[in-house]
C-alpha cells in the first residue's frame, strides 16, 4: 500500500510544470465560464445548453491559443472533454425525465454515467502519468494465500462493480426467456431475473477470487464465518432478503396489489429485497414494511385486477315497521348509490331486534377497497334521507333527564 501511495505522490510534482498549469488554468476557466453561463439563464434546459456551448467555445479558443503558442494541449482536451461529457449526459438525462421515472434517473446518473466518466478519466490520466502494467504489479499484501497487487485489486473492484451494476438487464432478459420457455405464468419475471442476477454475481465473484489466487479453503472459512454472522448479527437483514426473494418468486405480492394492514387498505408500490413500499390511502403516507412481516402474519390481499370488495353497513329501524318493506327499501337505496356494483345486487338482512328497534345489515360489492369509506358513507346518507321522506323513524339513543318532584317537609304534615 505504501508503494502505491508513494507512486501516486510522485505524480504531483508533474502537475507543477508550467505547461501543465497552463492547461489546468484553461480547464478551470472553461468550467467557471460555463457555470456562469448556466446560472445566468432561466429554464434548466436552456441553461444546460448554454453551459455546454460555453465549455465548447472557451475550450476551443484556449486549445487554439495553446496550439499557436506550441504548448501541450492533450491534458486540457481530456479534461474539457470530460466536463463536456458530463454536461451532455445531464442534457440527455433531462430529456429522459419525460419517459423515465425519477427513481431510475438517479441510479443512471450516479451508478453508471458518472462512475464511467470518472473511471475513463482516471484510466487515461494514469496512462499519461505512469505505466498501467507497472502500476498493476505494485504489491498490496498477502490475503487468503494470494499475493494481491494493484492490478488484481483493480480487476476485483471493476468486475464486481460491473457484475452488480450491469448484470440487471441481461438477467431480466434471461428471466424473460426462461419464463417463455417454461411457461412460468405464476412466477414473476423479476423474481427469476433477481435469482439469475444473484447467481451470476455469486459465481462471478467466486471465479474472480479463484483467478486472482485466493485460497478456496480460506474462502470457505469466510463463508462459514459469514453464516455465523448471519445467524447472530444480520439475521433480520438476511431474513428480510430471503423473504423478499420468496415473495417475488412466489408471486403472492406484486406491485399494484391492495392489502389490509392494521385495518387500513394500502397499495403495494414496490417490492424490494429487504422491505416492501406501500401507499396508504387514508393519509397518503408511504410505508416501508420489512418483508418478514408478510411471512409472520396473515395478510388480507386483493390482487391486481381482482380488487372487488364486499362491504356492508348496519342500520337500526323502528321495530314497528314491516321487515319485508324495510329490507326491500334498503336494497333499493343501496343499488341506487353510485359506486355500488349492480352484479351481484345489494342484499339486506334483518339481524334481530335490539334496544333501538330492528337491526338491519345491507351487504353490497364495490370496485375497490379504497372506495369503501366513501361509498358506505353515501349508502347510510341515502338511507337516512329516504327514511326521513317516508316518515320512518330511525331510532337512536336518547338521554332523558327528569327532575324528581320534591315536597317541603312542612307541607307533608298539613
Amino acid at each position, binding site marked *: 500500500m505504501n508503494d502505491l501511495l508513494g*507512486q501516486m505522490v510522485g*505524480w504531483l510534482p508533474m502537475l507543477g510544470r508550467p505547461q501543465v498549469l497552463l492547461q489546468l488554468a484553461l480547464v478551470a476557466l472553461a468550467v467557471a465560464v460555463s457555470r456562469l453561463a448556466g446560472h445566468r439563464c432561466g429554464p434548466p434546459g436552456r441553461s444546460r445548453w448554454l453551459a455546454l456551448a460555453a465549455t465548447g467555445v472557451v475550450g476551443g479558443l484556449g486549445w487554439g491559443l495553446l496550439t499557436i503558442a506550441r504548448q501541450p*494541449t492533450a491534458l486540457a482536451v*481530456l479534461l474539457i472533454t470530460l466536463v463536456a461529457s458530463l454536461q451532455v449526459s445531464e442534457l440527455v438525462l433531462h430529456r429522459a425525465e419525460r419517459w423515465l421515472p425519477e427513481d431510475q434517473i438517479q441510479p443512471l446518473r450516479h451508478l453508471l454515467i458518472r462512475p464511467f466518466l470518472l473511471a475513463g478519466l482516471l484510466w487515461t490520466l494514469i496512462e*499519461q502519468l505512469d*505505466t498501467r502494467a*507497472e502500476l498493476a504489479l505494485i504489491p498490496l499484501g498477502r490475503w487468503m494465500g494470494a499475493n494481491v497487487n494493484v492490478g488484481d485489486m483493480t480487476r476485483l473492484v471493476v468486475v464486481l462493480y460491473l457484475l452488480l451494476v450491469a448484470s440487471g438487464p441481461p438477467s431480466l432478459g434471461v428471466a424473460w426467456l426462461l419464463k417463455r420457455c417454461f411457461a412460468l405464468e405464476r412466477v414473476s419475471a423479476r423474481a427469476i431475473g433477481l435469482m439469475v442476477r444473484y447467481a451470476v454475481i455469486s459465481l462471478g465473484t467466486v471465479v474472480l477470487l479463484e483467478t486472482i489466487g485466493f485460497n478456496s479453503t480460506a474462502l470457505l472459512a469466510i463463508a462459514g464465518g459469514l453464516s455465523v454472522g448471519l445467524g447472530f448479527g444480520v439475521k433480520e437483514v438476511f431474513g428480510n432478503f430471503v423473504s423478499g426473494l420468496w415473495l417475488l418468486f412466489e408471486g403472492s405480492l406484486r406491485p399494484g396489489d391492495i392489502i389490509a394492514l392494521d385495518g387500513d387498505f394500502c397499495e403495494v408500490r414496490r417490492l424490494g429485497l429487504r422491505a416492501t413500499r406501500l401507499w396508504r390511502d387514508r393519509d397518503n403516507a408511504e410505508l416501508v414494511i420489512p418483508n418478514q412481516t408478510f411471512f409472520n402474519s396473515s395478510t388480507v390481499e386483493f390482487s391486481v385486477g381482482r380488487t372487488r370488495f364486499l362491504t356492508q353497513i348496519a342500520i337500526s329501524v323502528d321495530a314497528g315497521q314491516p321487515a319485508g318493506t324495510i329490507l326491500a327499501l334498503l336494497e333499493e337505496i343501496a343499488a341506487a348509490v353510485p359506486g355500488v356494483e349492480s352484479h351481484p345486487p345489494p342484499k339486506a338482512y334483518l339481524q334481530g331486534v335490539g334496544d333501538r328497534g330492528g337491526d338491519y345489515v345491507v351487504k353490497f360489492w364495490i370496485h375497490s377497497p379504497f372506495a369503501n369509506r366513501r361509498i358506505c358513507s353515501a349508502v347510510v346518507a341515502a338511507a337516512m334521507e329516504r327514511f326521513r321522506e317516508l316518515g320512518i323513524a330511525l331510532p337512536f339513543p336518547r338521554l332523558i333527564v327528569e327532575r324528581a318532584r320534591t315536597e317541603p317537609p312542612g307541607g307533608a304534615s298539613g
Partner: protein
Amino acid sequence: MNGALRVLLLTLPLSLLSGCGLATEELRGTAYLAISVEGDQPLTKAILQEEVLQAQAIVAAFRQLHPHVAIETNLLRESAFIGEVRRRQAAGFGPDLMLVAGSTAHALVEADLARGLQLPQATRRQVDADSLQRLEIPPRGLAGLPILRRPQLACYNRTRLAASPTSTDDLLRAARGGLRVGLAVESRSLFWSTGPLGADRAILAAAAGRPLAAGEREGLQRWLAWLSAANFNQQVFIEPDQEALVQGLLERRLDWIPCNSGSLSRLRRSLGTALGVSDLPAGPYGPPTPITRLRVLAFGTDSTARQRRVAEALAVFALNPWIQSTLTTDNQDMLPTNRFVPPSALHTPVLKAMQRSVRQADASDAIARLLPAGDPRDRELTRLVTAVAFGEITAAEATGDVLRALAPRP
C-alpha cells in the same frame, strides 16, 4: 539561437559537474525517468526488477548524495517508446530522463522528443569510444549519454553441460546428443547466429538498401537453412521471444540459450552455481554476431529548470567510474561505458565473456542501428524467420522474401 541556448544550458552544468564532481548548490526536486523494456511479453515482477535493477542502484546511490531529490521511474515498451513519449509530451507529462536503447535514443532526438547532447571534452574522454560513435547525430551531438552495455552471451545449465559449445555445428551435435537448446525467433535474439553462417553481411546490405553479392545471398540462405534444420532436431526448441528462453532455463526445461547479460541476475538467483556463462558459438564463416544492448540516458524536453538540473546531475553521476565499477562488480550483468573503471573490476570469467561478446558485436551494432526496435521491417523479419523455423516455407523460398522485407521503406 534556441538550439544554442539549449546546448549552453546542457553543457554548462555537465562541464561544471564533471569538472568538480560535486554540485555547489543543494539539489532538490523530482525527476521522471522512463525506462524502456525490450520484447512484447507481458510485464512481470521479474522483468520489472531486471530492467530497473541498475537504474535503482544508481538512483539509490545518487539519493545518498542528494537526499532531497526523488526519481520516479516508469517502464515503457521499447517498441512503443517513441509513441508513448510523444503522447505524454502532448499533455506536458514527458519524462525528464529516458534510459533506452541506443537506437531509440537516436529516434527520440530525430523526432524532437529528446534534446541532443554536447558533451564537454573532459567527459567525452571518459566514455567508451564505440558507444559514443553509436550515439553520434551530427550536427546535434549525441543522442544521449551511454551508461551501460548489456552484451549477448550463451547461458547454460552446468549440471547438464560442462562447457558451452564453441561452434554452431557443435551446438546442433550436442542437441542431437540430448542437450535441450532454446532459440527465439525474435530477430534480435537470433542475429548472433548470422555471423557464424555468413549471413550478417547480407542482412546489413539488404537493410541498408545496397545490392547483394552472390556470396552474400548464399550466406543468407545458408543461415535460413540452418534454422530450418535446427527445428527438425527434437531437442532444439523454438520459442517466440527471449523471455520465453529465460523462463525455459529458469524452469530447467532448457539447458542452453542465448541470453542477454541483463537476465543474469535473475538466472543466477534461480540456478546459483549451476549457471554457466560463455560467449556464443562461432561457425565456419566467422565469429558470432551478438547484439550488445547499449543503455543510454536521453534527456526529455518537458522539464522545468529544476527537473533538468536533477536529470543532468543524475546522468553525470551514472557515468561516474565509482558507481559504474560498483554496479559491474556487484551485479556481474553489465559492462561499464566509462573507460576509467579499473581493469581489476572486470577480471571475472563472466565479465571477460561479456568483453569478448562486445568485441564481436560490431556487425550487430550496425544492424541494431539499421533496424531499430519497433521498425516494421524487424517485425516482418521475425515473421519470416518463424515461418522458416516451423517449416512453413523453405529456406530458398524465404531468401527473396527476407531481402524484400528488409529493403528500406521510402
